[in-house]
């Protein structure tokens, strides 16, 4: 196990900068998830940590030592690839043993470690098979097993679940979580799936265009997003955004007029000036049906998705735009119904014109 630190890490491909000076600290035994949309640089960052990509600027430190020039093999890291990267011509046993054989570990020790990994991942009966004879989930287990046997300082996962179907993803999420608790190892996991990020991470790093947007625990990011991007990226269904204008300010009290005529008055620590444009962010579960007199929003139901445990209702607003409402249980709502909505417990965020948050729920 080890600590990892990135200091102003930069990556350029032929003059094009894709990572713009990343600073980050990963504590010993922490499970950190890099999350962000495609092309945000999360996999590149992971590969730089792994030693598979050169570092254009800054430093990567493992346990306080700069490893920029250290070959991948010497960093004592193990990586689980998106494609699994299992050697197709070798049996599962050979795949697991390959790294140890390379390190010239005694045969008996290799056998013992392979057996331990097989026990942990419950792949004993697969040891003599070749990767081509395994299902996606089994291959994923073998890929993780290959990492485990090396007892690395840090585990790196590069979108390891993206080739699995939904049910298997959920199953593997649980297994990886269990593995982390069992091994207590430092793990860095890259994904574009915010559900994976929320469910696995001790700490989430949200990336966009080669920059860190926010770092924090899953609930910190969910409850107090730093900007519109983070607020929109985490949470499913995603947060609703409503444009508005500050119509009056008195001390820390501001009145916001929403498009469509409704207005609301709220406390903002440092309110923007009158006339400034703001964005209200409200999560689907914080929008609740209310009597017409208490409504902040109203609109016509377009679609109601019944999921059994909850109902997702898509409401078209009169001025254009749609909001998603999450109602617990099986709501009796149908397309065409008129719905009046309020903000439950004042749980909404306000973002300024620069998209940064100015008031949390």
């Amino acid at each position, binding site marked *: 196990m080890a600590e990892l630190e990135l200091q102003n890490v930069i990556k350029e491909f032929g003059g094009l900068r894709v990572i713009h000076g990343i600073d980050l600290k990963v504590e010993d035994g922490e499970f950190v998830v890099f999350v962000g949309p495609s092309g945000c640089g999360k996999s590149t960052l992971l590969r730089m940590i792994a030693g598979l990509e050169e570092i254009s600027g800054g430093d990567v430190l493992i346990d306080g030592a700069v490893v920029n020039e250290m070959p991948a093999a010497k960093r004592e890291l*193990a*990586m689980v690839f998106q494609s699994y990267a299992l*050697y197709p*011509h070798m049996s599962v046993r050979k795949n697991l043993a*390959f790294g140890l054989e*390379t390190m010239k570990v005694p045969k008996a020790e290799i056998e013992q470690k392979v057996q331990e990994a097989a026990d942990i991942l419950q792949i004993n009966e697969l040891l003599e098979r070749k990767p081509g004879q395994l299902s996606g989930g089994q291959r994923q287990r073998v890929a993780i097993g290959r990492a485990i046997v*090396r007892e690395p300082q840090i585990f790196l996962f590069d979108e390891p679940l993206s080739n699995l179907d939904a049910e298997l993803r959920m199953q593997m999420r649980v297994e990886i979580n269990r593995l982390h608790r069992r091994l207590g190892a430092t793990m860095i996991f890259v994904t574009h799936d915010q559900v994976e990020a929320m469910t696995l991470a001790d700490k989430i790093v949200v990336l966009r265009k080669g920059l860190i947007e926010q770092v924090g625990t899953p609930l910190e990011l969910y409850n107090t997003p730093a900007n519109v991007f983070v607020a929109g990226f985490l949470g499913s269904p995603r947060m609703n955004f409503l444009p508005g204008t500050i119509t009056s300010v008195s001390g820390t009290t501001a009145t916001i007029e929403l498009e469509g005529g409704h207005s609301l008055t709220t406390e903002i620590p440092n309110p923007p000036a009158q006339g400034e444009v703001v964005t209200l962010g409200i999560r689907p579960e914080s929008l609740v049906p209310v009597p017409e007199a208490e409504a902040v929003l109203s609109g016509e139901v377009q679609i109601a998705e019944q999921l059994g445990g909850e109902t997702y209702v898509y409401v078209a607003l009169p001025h254009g735009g749609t909001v998603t409402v999450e109602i617990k249980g099986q709501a009796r709502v149908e397309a065409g119904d008129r719905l009046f909505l309020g903000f439950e417990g004042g749980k909404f965020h306000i973002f300024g014109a620069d998209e940064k948050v100015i008031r949390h729920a």
Partner: protein
Amino acid sequence: MTSVSTNPGGRSAPSTEGRFARIWRRNGAGYLFLLPWLVGFLGLTLGPTLASLYLSFTDYDLLTSPRWSGLKNYEYAAFYDRRLGKAIEVTFTYVLWSVPLKLTVALLLAMVLDRSVRGVAFYRATFYLPSLLGASVAIAVLWRQLFGADGLINQLLFFVTGIQGPAWITHPDYALSTLIVLAIWQFGSPMIIFLAGLRQVPQDLYEAASMDGASGWRQFWKITLPLLAPVIFFNLVLQTIEAFKAFTQAYIVSGGLGGPVDSTMFYSLYLYLEAFANFRMGYASALAWILLVIIAIFTAIAFGTSKYWVYYEDEQR
């Protein structure tokens, strides 16, 4: 009243003419398109093949009609023709040296050209060029000049080392080696096939191996070679067959005689001399069929052993 019918279905049997007309209506255009190939195959491949099989059991000198001689030609080849023994020895030596060396050079260069370096397309074309020219008469003539006693190779050798080189193609000890070098020089075709094979090896396997601490050499032995085995196998079979059939180089370089002292008497050249110098067409046909059997045996051995060293990703074992 009872009547007996010979056609219980009540349908009349289709006439031959009707059936052909229907087939023609349905597939006529296809057969028309097939015709050029079919004529070529029957007239230029199958016909001569069957004719040579028949002729191999005859005495035939082109001037008189073939006379049936049973297995005499095969007996002579198997037990009495000492020059054929020499031709087989020369050909086997040529195959066993030229094929592995050519494949090794082709693989090494393919690996070099697989890297993304500036001007790689130019180098690929340059290295492939000898394959296009290599088996041609012009190159063989050029080769004869280069490796002659006063040829460029010896001049260079003398200039650099001060050693007077031998007459490479007229000395029995060196003539075959010179032809083997010429064969290796034609590495372009297998190189291009290796290059395509290398492109199919997923990059992340090398990345996984490098994270596992595997050196470049270990990656080559444990990943590149096993995953390239189907391509190596394909090239091996193809090049072995080509090498067994080698003719032009020996014919030109030795002036059509397989000399000096039969040192470049390739099997195909000996077959040619029997047919068109000695006019023993029947015996030459028998030699052609023996060569076919030899090639078939080698190919069968290659296929037979392939299950131990060739891995196909889609196989279930």
